[in-house]
């Protein structure tokens, strides 16, 4: 392998790592506690972002090892937030090591410092974020949208957000997010209608304008996602998305996903997507098995695979163990080791070791 090729690979991995932590905490694994619908805890119907009052309380009750009610409240309960307002500040820092055959690179980066607020009056909510995006050295708004709940189950939403597709896991660098066009700060402008019931949920999203940061800029199209929740801890779903640029170069995603809470302390997340883009057919997958021996302390293994462009790049496999720890409400630490290899690049094994701190105020 040439030095130039190694360098390209290393730069690609570094870029990957610099944005390698969850962007907006979404926890599909909460299905293990019977929480099938993201909107139980988040204002965002599709999950992630600012928590509602119940979500804050649940951070203490179901996620963290220790804590007090004050810690779960907005700004430690220093002021009483009115009922119509949910607000938060979220910061995220990452330290990592990248191990290649000849080098070891160490670095730290402040990844996110965002504020998000949601104003809710009756069934109507307006949500917006503002924060620093280090990749561009600029202030941006990742999400801003208005949503209206016509009833407890039916809602419409318009604005900038991710279309609902698949597991909606927070790890935006995972192959199922990044390679499928759902990377960090790539929310598109959409119009969405949704049904979220006790057992069934469904989203139809018209993608009106893609994000200029996206690899798939200028795409428009439609996304569909549906899921079924059963036996109080299991959720299965199907998703589809078709986008194109002015009717040309269609890109199609078809996927199945599962969130299976075998017990309240042992769960599995999995997603498998078929991708068809300009005759570059292939697959992306994500799997996580997680054991929580005491509340808030997780030991997990992830396995990811992509060959969405198999004719050109071959398949890339990434896997490894990690520890995720929520010592107090809204504080998350994550340590992970991953090993990655690409099938058509000899000696392409890489070690990726990261430590992440996420703090939600």
């Amino acid at each position: 392998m040439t030095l130039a090729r190694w360098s390209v690979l290393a730069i690609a991995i570094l870029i990957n790592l610099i944005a390698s932590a969850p962007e907006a905490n979404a926890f599909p694994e909460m299905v293990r506690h019977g929480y099938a619908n993201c909107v139980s805890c988040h204002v965002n119907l599709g999950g992630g972002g600012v928590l509602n009052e119940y979500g804050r309380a649940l951070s203490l009750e179901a996620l963290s090892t220790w804590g007090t009610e004050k810690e779960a409240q907005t700004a430690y309960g220093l002021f009483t937030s009115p009922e119509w307002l949910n607000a938060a500040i979220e910061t995220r820092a990452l330290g990592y090591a990248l191990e290649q055959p000849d080098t070891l690179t160490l670095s730290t980066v402040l990844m996110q410092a965002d504020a998000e607020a949601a104003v809710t009056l009756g069934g109507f909510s307006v949500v917006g974020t503002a924060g620093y995006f280090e990749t561009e050295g600029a202030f941006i708004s990742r999400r801003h949208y208005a949503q209206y709940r016509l009833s407890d189950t039916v809602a419409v939403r318009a604005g900038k957000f991710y279309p609902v597709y698949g597991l909606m896991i927070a790890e935006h660098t995972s192959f199922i997010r990044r390679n499928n066009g759902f990377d960090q700060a790539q929310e598109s402008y959409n119009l969405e209608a949704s049904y979220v019931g006790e057992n069934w949920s469904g989203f139809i999203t018209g993608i009106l304008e893609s994000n200029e940061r996206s690899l798939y800029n200028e795409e428009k199209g439609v996304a569909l996602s549906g899921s079924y929740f059963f036996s109080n801890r299991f959720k299965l779903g199907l998703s589809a998305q078709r986008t194109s640029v002015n009717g040309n170069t269609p890109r199609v995603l078809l996927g199945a996903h599962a969130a299976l809470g075998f017990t309240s302390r042992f769960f599995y997340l999995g997603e498998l997507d078929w991708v068809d883009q300009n005759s570059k057919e292939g697959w992306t997958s994500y799997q996580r098995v997680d054991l929580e021996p005491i509340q808030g302390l997780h030991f997990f293994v992830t396995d990811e695979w992509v060959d969405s462009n198999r004719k050109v790049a071959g398949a890339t496999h990434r896997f490894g163990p990690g520890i995720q720890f929520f010592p107090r409400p809204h504080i998350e630490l994550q340590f992970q080791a991953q090993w990655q290899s690409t099938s058509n690049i000899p000696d392409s094994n890489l070690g990726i070791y990261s430590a992440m701190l996420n703090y939600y105020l």
Partner: protein
Amino acid sequence: MRDYLKTSLLTAVAFTLLQSSSALAEAQPIRLIPSSPKVTYDAVGRPSMLKIHGEGKDLTLQLTRDGATIAGKMSFNPATLDSGISLRDRHAREKYLEVEKYPEASFEMAPITLPTEFLDETQKETSLPIKGKLTLHGVTREVEAKTQVKREGTEVEVQSTFEIKLPEYQVAIPSFAGIKVAEDVTLTVNFKVEWK
């Protein structure tokens, strides 16, 4: 003398037979298989359509069987209900079910007659509407439960489902952090008993 002995013997035999038949007719207690009970509740929290599920195991039976007729009472300790979220359980116990004041929930069932097909095992499974008095939160109401009965060798598995409305039992509608529980709650009682 001989006639006297004969009469006495016949009297004794008749008395014994009478006693035996009386004993046979006496209702026999139904024995619960200790590891089998599970009492669950299912409710929905709005507006997020949150499914709330809790389970408890502390069920006692005072059921009797007299031939094909079953009657008696089931009692449950509501303080043992566990939904997996401790704050929710604490609120349920202290604010809504008030378990210190009302430590027992019970169902006093009106006698039911099992179908012959079930007794002679031509039918392994049957469903029965069971009527009786359900006492919850200190309030007693006439209810009807859908009940499935399934025979498995020397055991019978029972599942009774009660659809209740919390206000009818003077239970305040649970509400927490913007989530309000719908007033309709499904209670399900599962257990197995020995069957001879």
